[in-house]
């Protein structure tokens, strides 16, 4: 089992958490939604796996490239 880090591709603010530790996710699933440039930008996982950690909470600022979730897959 590999540890997979999921990053935000854009700077913004956490708007919604769409997953929680223990969730099984598939490639293409949205884990978190970031509000940036007045749009809802999804943080999408490329890999399938189990969510181990969500490293942010709603309204947290996030930077481009910041790890926001960790999966095991």
């Amino acid at each position, binding site marked *: 089992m590999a540890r997979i880090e999921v990053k935000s*591709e*854009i*700077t913004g603010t956490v708007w919604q958490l769409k997953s929680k530790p223990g969730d099984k996710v598939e490639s293409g699933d949205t884990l978190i939604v970031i509000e*940036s*440039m*007045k*749009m809802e930008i*999804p943080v*999408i996982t490329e890999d399938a796996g189990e969510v181990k950690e969500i490293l942010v909470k709603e309204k947290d600022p996030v930077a*481009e490239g910041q790890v926001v979730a960790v999966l095991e897959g």
Partner: protein
Amino acid sequence: MASETLLAEYEARRAKALAGGGADKYAKRTAKGILNARERITKLVDGDSFIESGLFGTSAVEPHLADETQTDGKIAGYAKIGGRDVAIVVNDFTVKGASTSYTNGRKVGHMKRTATERGMPLVCLGESTGARLPDAMGGYGMGMLLGNDNTQFRRTRETPMVAAAFGPSFGSSTWMMCISDFAVMHKGATVAVSSPGLVSMALGQKVTAEELGGWRLHSDITGLIDQAVDTEEEVFEAIQKFLSYMPSHHNEAPPDAPVPAGSGTDMDKVFGMLPESRTQVYDMKRIIRCVVDKDTMFELKPRFGKSAVTTLARLGGKSVGIVANNPLHRGGSLDADACRKIVDFLVLCDSFNVPVVLLVDTPGFQIGTEAEKAGAPGRIMNFMNAMTLLTVPHLSVIIRKSYGRAYVCMGGGRHSDDIAAWPSAEISFMSPEFATKIVHGVAFGEPGYEEKLKDIEKGADVWGLASVYAAQAVIRPQETRDYLIRMLDVYKLRISKGVGQHLMRTWPTSY
């Protein structure tokens, strides 16, 4: 000498040359599931169309090693792909690691010159260790081997050039990947200036081949390759498919293809692919697949600069290059990587007479410290410049947002031959929410915001653009495919028989 003797010697020499680095080395590769050079040729080209040039070449630097240097490690010749002539160079790693030396350098040079002067694509299948040692050592070696052909790395884009990387592809194979119009990597190959071994010796840095030059690095970060695929067979399929969209040379239009059955059948669903809320995102690739001829989408650099999509495709059987924003990533805002990718693609399309269609939904160029650190303004101006130098027919369709300078770069004003817009289009200098704060000094949540926002939003719909003829048409979304096919015909280059002016033919191959 009797003719039988001469022929016997010929056959013996031929058999030895065809044996390359020897049956044992070939068998070891086969056992590992790695194709040998001549097997790669068979899978790449049409039937038995390959005719070799330089089968009897061997090392000129060390003639006593002739037996160990069959073909001098690079197999060259002519063949047909999809019924059309190509020149090919295929490295044979079993011969001195397909390292570059005098004789094989002459072979590669001749293939490139012939392809360029006679109007054939050049295809290079790489797997190489770099310059041959000790051949290239010292002043004598350098003087003999390096730089004696100043057209070796010249790109003036007369013919499409394709490169593939298998296994270790250091030195020449890496250079070929970088100067090609289409570079495809077999996952597991390494594209890098030098090997992990030399890096370790010179820098004391321990690094794996994958970290140094693996497919993820080049797909996601450097953008130096166009596609990475899982199997060797997929490499050959990708090359064949890429060439099917291209003319053989820059003085002809790309070939037409039959329109596949089922093309355009989902157009009545296309408007439903947009989310109802303008703050929500969607995958532009679904719209592209719907609009173009069925199964003709052939995307380049899909993992690099993902807020833009650059894909070859066909519309009504004719090659087109699609440049689209993809709101699924960054909301469609264009960062430095996306700009680089688009410019690369515009240069390809303009050089080889492929008309361009721009599908627009962007809130603008990416702003913020990361964008500025990446040199975004310079990349944006490269994009702007490329759009002013584009001489193939180019049409723009505004699907949703088109803001600011990105409006112009994505074909706004007279940067397209024709602009059509969907009724959902909104065009302005910036997002109305930000403009409300700048113009009226009120932000979201403050008294009077909603009223002032409505005022700002008034002119941002499609009708303002249409009223001043900055959009030539407002179309029903389901008519987009038919409209584009018709307009590509209207704007075709009749006078030059489909051939553009190639003003970007000397644009750098990566930058």
